[in-house]
């Protein structure tokens, strides 16, 4: 891996290592990575969390300077080696020749200053332009990235922009000095899928127009397949494979890449076989005309309410998996929480097993609770950090009257069943990984042998390979425990893989509900079509 820089490369990285000293030894986050980025080209770096992809991106701009990190190897930007230059020279490179955009566009901009001023400040730093000229440039680039009425919106502060607009503003800042290279670190991971598509389109367009090279760091193979021509796959700080994107994604050489590709749920692959329902056809839970309103903060005397869920009616059939998809703010989580009676509906009714449970008081609800359980998104906040894993799993049993020892025995059995070592029952959640904690959450939800399991984004916080394992586990458990599952997610591909029927939500309303096969092959509603079209497809 010691080839010298390819002619025509604007960026050439050789044998890059980044090490962080930690309490027990040195953590090598990036371990001998080399690659070239051709002028006007686009290179993707993909990997799961902890693969060192973001650390690599930061090293390209010398952003590890001033931290405890030790960086070695070469980062050649034309004639300059970023690692060899003094601080002042590196500072002059940043933003002018190589610019960077980040994952969270809200926190990436200063909340106290106008967006135009922030861009103008960058422009003036590198060009020495006057105030007025810099402002004009800021408006120009904001206009270029598709901010409507840029002259006026340049006066806004970041919180007045939506997520997608903020990312556009950050891209505008990157454009201000016409750099040769744009490093984009997970630029769309915090955005909804339709907004993601717009931002990726914009990046394509800018690359074609300006000849700027793009280095795109992401965990999402779909994004890579759509937006770059070469890809570098990283694992544990090492580059495991590099090549043209079409080759790597269709005929991967490295086993890790193959495993990764297999784990990714895709919209174009044949849908996995779904097991037959146990008591098919009979509705287990019926939701009719369900609405939930929240008061908007700062509304004052006027009743300014937000209808998070707006008149939703649907049936959940025994033994099926009903997928619920929607973008942020669609009301899918609110709906899920109402179904298990964690949130009180404003109006409407929930009937479970033929019994109206909408207004059942907590005491009368207790026996019903056994049948309605939930798996949460965030594996950190869903387990009490101060209770042992065994206790957390056994608790529901104890609440429902099982003796302490008996409950713990069942808890250990469940741990075994979900793939955890039962001898670790007396440990605390922080000693486990995210995937393991999600297994605990599932074990706890199953401890009462519920009929209905509502899973709210159960795999969104996990890496793809872990995600695939959890999805497999859920499928096996559904069969074994004869579960009916409501699977809430923003990820259309995941929902397609696990669901029998799928409900699409938007702005609190149910837009479309159909058999999974039908919905994905011939969507009836316009919005469903838009959503499906926005999902980046592999290869």
């Amino acid at each position, binding site marked *: 891996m010691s080839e010298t820089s390819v002619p025509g490369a604007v960026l050439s990285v050789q044998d890059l290592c980044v090490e962080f000293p930690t309490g027990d030894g040195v*953590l090598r986050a990036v371990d001998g990575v080399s690659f070239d980025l051709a002028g006007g080209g686009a290179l993707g770096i993909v990997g*799961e*969390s*902890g*693969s060192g992809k973001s650390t690599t991106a930061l090293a390209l701009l010398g952003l590890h300077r001033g931290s405890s990190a030790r960086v070695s190897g070469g980062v050649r930007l034309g004639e300059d080696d970023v690692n060899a230059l003094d601080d002042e020279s590196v500072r002059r490179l940043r933003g002018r020749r190589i610019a960077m955009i980040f994952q969270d566009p809200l926190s990436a901009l200063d909340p106290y200053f106008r967006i135009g001023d922030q861009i103008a400040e960058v422009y003036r730093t590198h060009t020495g332009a006057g105030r007025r000229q810099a402002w004009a440039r800021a408006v120009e680039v904001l206009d270029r990235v598709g901010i409507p009425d840029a002259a006026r919106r340049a006066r806004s502060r970041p919180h007045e922009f939506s997520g997608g607009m903020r990312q556009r503003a950050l891209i505008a800042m990157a454009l201000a000095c016409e750099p040769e290279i744009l490093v984009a670190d997970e630029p769309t991971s915090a955005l909804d899928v339709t907004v993601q598509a717009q931002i990726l389109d914009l990046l394509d367009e800018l690359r074609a127009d300006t000849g700027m090279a793009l280095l795109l760091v992401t965990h999402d193979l779909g994004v890579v397949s759509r937006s770059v021509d070469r890809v570098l796959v990283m*694992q*544990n700080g090492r580059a495991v494979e590099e090549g043209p994107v079409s080759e790597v994604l269709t005929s991967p050489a490295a086993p890790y890449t193959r495993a990764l590709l297999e784990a990714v749920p895709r919209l174009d692959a044949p849908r996995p076989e779904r097991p037959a329902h146990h008591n098919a056809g009979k509705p287990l839970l019926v939701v009719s005309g369900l609405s939930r309103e929240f008061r908007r903060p700062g509304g004052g005397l006027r009743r300014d309410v937000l209808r998070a869920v707006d008149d939703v009616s649907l049936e959940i059939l025994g033994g099926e998996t009903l997928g619920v998809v929607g973008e942020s703010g669609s009301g899918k989580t609110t709906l899920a*929480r109402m179904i*298990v009676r*964690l949130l009180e509906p404003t109006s409407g009714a929930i009937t479970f097993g033929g019994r109206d449970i909408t207004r059942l008081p*907590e005491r009368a*609800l*207790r*026996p019903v*609770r*056994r049948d*309605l*359980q*939930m798996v*949460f*998104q*965030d594996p*950190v*906040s*869903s*387990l*009490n*950090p*101060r*209770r042992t894993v065994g206790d*957390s799993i056994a*608790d*529901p049993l104890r*609440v*429902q009257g099982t003796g302490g020892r008996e409950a713990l025995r069942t808890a250990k059995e469940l741990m075994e069943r979900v793939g955890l070592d039962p001898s670790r029952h007396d440990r*605390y*959640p*922080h000693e*486990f*990984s*995210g*995937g*393991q904690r999600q297994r605990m*959450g599932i074990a*706890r*939800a199953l401890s*009462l042998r519920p009929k209905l399991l509502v899973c709210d984004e159960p795999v969104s916080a996990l*890496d793809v*390979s*872990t995600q695939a394992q959890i999805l497999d586990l859920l499928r096996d458990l559904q069969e074994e425990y004869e579960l009916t599952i409501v699977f809430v997610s923003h990820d259309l591909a995941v929902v397609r893989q696990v669901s029998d029927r799928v409900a699409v939500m938007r702005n609190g309303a149910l837009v479309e509900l159909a058999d999974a096969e039908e919905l994905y092959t011939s969507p009836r509603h316009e919005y469903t079509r838009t959503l499906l079209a926005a999902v980046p497809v592999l290869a």
Partner: protein
Amino acid sequence: MTAELVTEVGAAPEAPTRGRQVRRRLFADRMAMTGLVVAVVMIVAAITAPLLIHLEGQDATTYHPELLNSARGGVPRGAFGGASGAHWLGVEPTTGRDLFARALGGAQISFVVAIGTLVVQLLLGVGIGLAAGLGGKIADSFLGRLIDLSISFPQLIFAIALLAIVPGDFPRPLLLMMVIGLFGWGGTARLVRGQVLSLRTRDYVAAARLSGAGRARIALREILPGVSAPVLTYAALLLPSNMISEAGLSFLGVGVRPPASSWGQMLSTATTWFQADPTYVLVPGLLLLVNVLAFTLLADGLRTALDPRAGLRAGRR
């Protein structure tokens, strides 16, 4: 499986800070340990005060006019406020009472009032904070206001007014505990309420509700354990602050009354002697300062040990 291993290394979730780990960090903190040693010495001295005074062979109330220089307005004879083998820290100007005995008496008052006040503050603060955080919307909006009110209140004015008019025969240390406690629970209550409200939204509380657990069980098992650590560290900081409050009120003449002694009261009489007899100022002044500092360092060490990012000295390495 590699991904799972990686997350295990990379993730830094809110770890429960457990006894052994906290103790290890605390014992490794030199400043906190200095504070602990000084605090322990002070407390032992206060507890064994009668014994120590007996050892010195003096008491806190006997006048010693023979040790004073009446020509200079009653300043103690000899250097350093008349310190000698018989009177280890010298004697008071004007009266000639033994300063060592009076200072130890002041230490007793300081600890008794600070600890008693802390009990009142914690009872009120934790009680009201929990009631606000756990007791539904109406209780919270009422108690929340009450907490805000108690924090933005000119408490000192009321404390002074209250202390000034309570008849002299009411036991002063007890009164001080009640008054400082009554006006000083707001911070604790706000902390507890905020913590409860934040813990209530955690998914594990939702999970407990889903299992059918009642309010009492959720409060006891899921929420209270998460409240105790921040309250503990806050309480540790309240202790030195209570010492200052007691000394301040006694300094203003509404706290501990003669013949009982208090550092604040000694300092108040010392104001007029700071030029003629600086020892008289320095004894109670430094005792108070050292004591407060020791407890502050200890409290900060405790906070740093429980939450390494939160301490006053956080960020130093």
